[in-house]
């Protein structure tokens, strides 16, 4: 199997497997996103 083939299969795997994983991760976060506290300017300053 050539480098071209390995890189291509890796890219396909990232798209076909990786993106649904991110989507499922997002589903676990929905409650926090919709009902969690908003980040206010003061909190942003606190990140420094």
């Amino acid at each position, binding site marked *: 199997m050539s480098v071209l083939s390995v890189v291509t299969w890796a890219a396909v795997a990232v798209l076909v497997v990786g993106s649904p994983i991110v*989507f499922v*991760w997002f589903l676990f976060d929905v409650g926090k996103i919709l009902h969690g506290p908003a980040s206010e300017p003061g909190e942003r300053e606190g990140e420094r």
Partner: protein
Amino acid sequence: MTLLDHSIVVVYLVGMIVLGYAVSRSITGFRDYFVAGGRMTTPLLVCTLVSTYYGLDVLLGGSEIGYLDGVVSWFWYARPYYVGLLLVALLLAGRLRERDFLSLPDVADAAYGKGTRAVVAVASFFYSLPLFALMGMGVLLDVAMGLPFVWGVVIGAAISLAYTLMGGLMADAFTDTVQFTLMCVTLGIAAVLALDGVGGADALPALLPASYFDPQGTYPTAALLVFATGALSVFVEPGIYQRIFAATSRRAIFGALAIGIVLWSSYDWITALLGMTAQASGLEVEPRYALLTLVSDALPPGLTGLFVAGVIATGMSTVDSYLLIAGGNLAYDLYRPLVNPHISDAGLLRLTRWSIVLACTIAVAFALFFTSMVSAWVFVTAVLVGAAFVPVSAALFASRPLKATAGLASSLTGLAVVTLVYTLVNVYGTESEEWGTVIWTVRFDGRTFDVWQDYAVLAALPASAIAFGLGQLLGPERPRGRHGRPT
């Protein structure tokens, strides 16, 4: 397309509106509407960043270069963007979140005042009009479903507009999650089936010229430099800025950009490779539509509908996000500070929604009026980089106080040089079929030079930097407020 394929596309379009409506009930004010109340976590940011920043221009443009020239599109057009995005994650995101900014022009305003804010806001507005995505949807709905081009553009715009108006960035981002998954998965499956048709990736070197596998392809060095320079746009990209401001934390945006780079690089590679596969399989079509033709031939019923929905998703996720930004440029960045600084939060929210309708109307009109928007897209990117890159970078990283004159001179000069070069090249140059751009052949001192219209940004950036330096050197000091900060 079969009845099943059509049904999948219709279910997808209706689903986007329902999802947008469901999310819209959580909107309580402008901040909620425009930056999702700063509640966006890493996975939501990954979905919305990847799907928004990659539209039909990348899908069709990347595969077009792959079809004509091979892997050069990945190495010289896409790869510099990953470096830029990594620098945004490492250097820019933290600095942007140190202040209470909501938009790119806010950054210019804080450093230089309202004049530079207005110039950057106008550049951002034109950059954000989603003309190419609307035209792409018109073509796609025409090719795939037999709808007239005008109806394709209007339907694509109307559906994106509907849920963006209702739920702002949150609705946009929630629909982006579906669109992101759909566009990535369908492209990956399409690649497997299409490559199988030519004997796999290993068979491509025997079917294509060696130059298709040369990272530099056949492009002149200056053109490759222009490709790479385009990556500077990530440092002033309004969509990326908006998501940095909408993130729950600096860590969330850093993680999202890091994961995004892996997804973007995979998407770009597959897009280029599908263009090359179309060439290898002997398809003789308009290069821009090589990918669509190849994939629609390779996929079975059902999957074709899913792929068409995925391509529509690629376009809609760009249209909705940039309509929101363009509307915000008019209402929040221009009207509020320049005309009515005391507008209420509810008034600003209402005005932003009307501005989005206006931006959408202008975008649809332009998309229907022009026959080719590729050059216009390159032009508006050059306008944004020329007007905003130098002053905004200085605003974020300069250690000494900046003068209002420096910001204004820099942004206006960048804007003027881009416009001047484009005008000169288009008046005196000719359309090159070989390179797909306008080239002006200049004769000087017995020698000839080819000036591409795309080179405008190479002239605009140093001019903008010189104007900035002169403004900083010669401009008056900004008056100081009560606490020593420039007013």
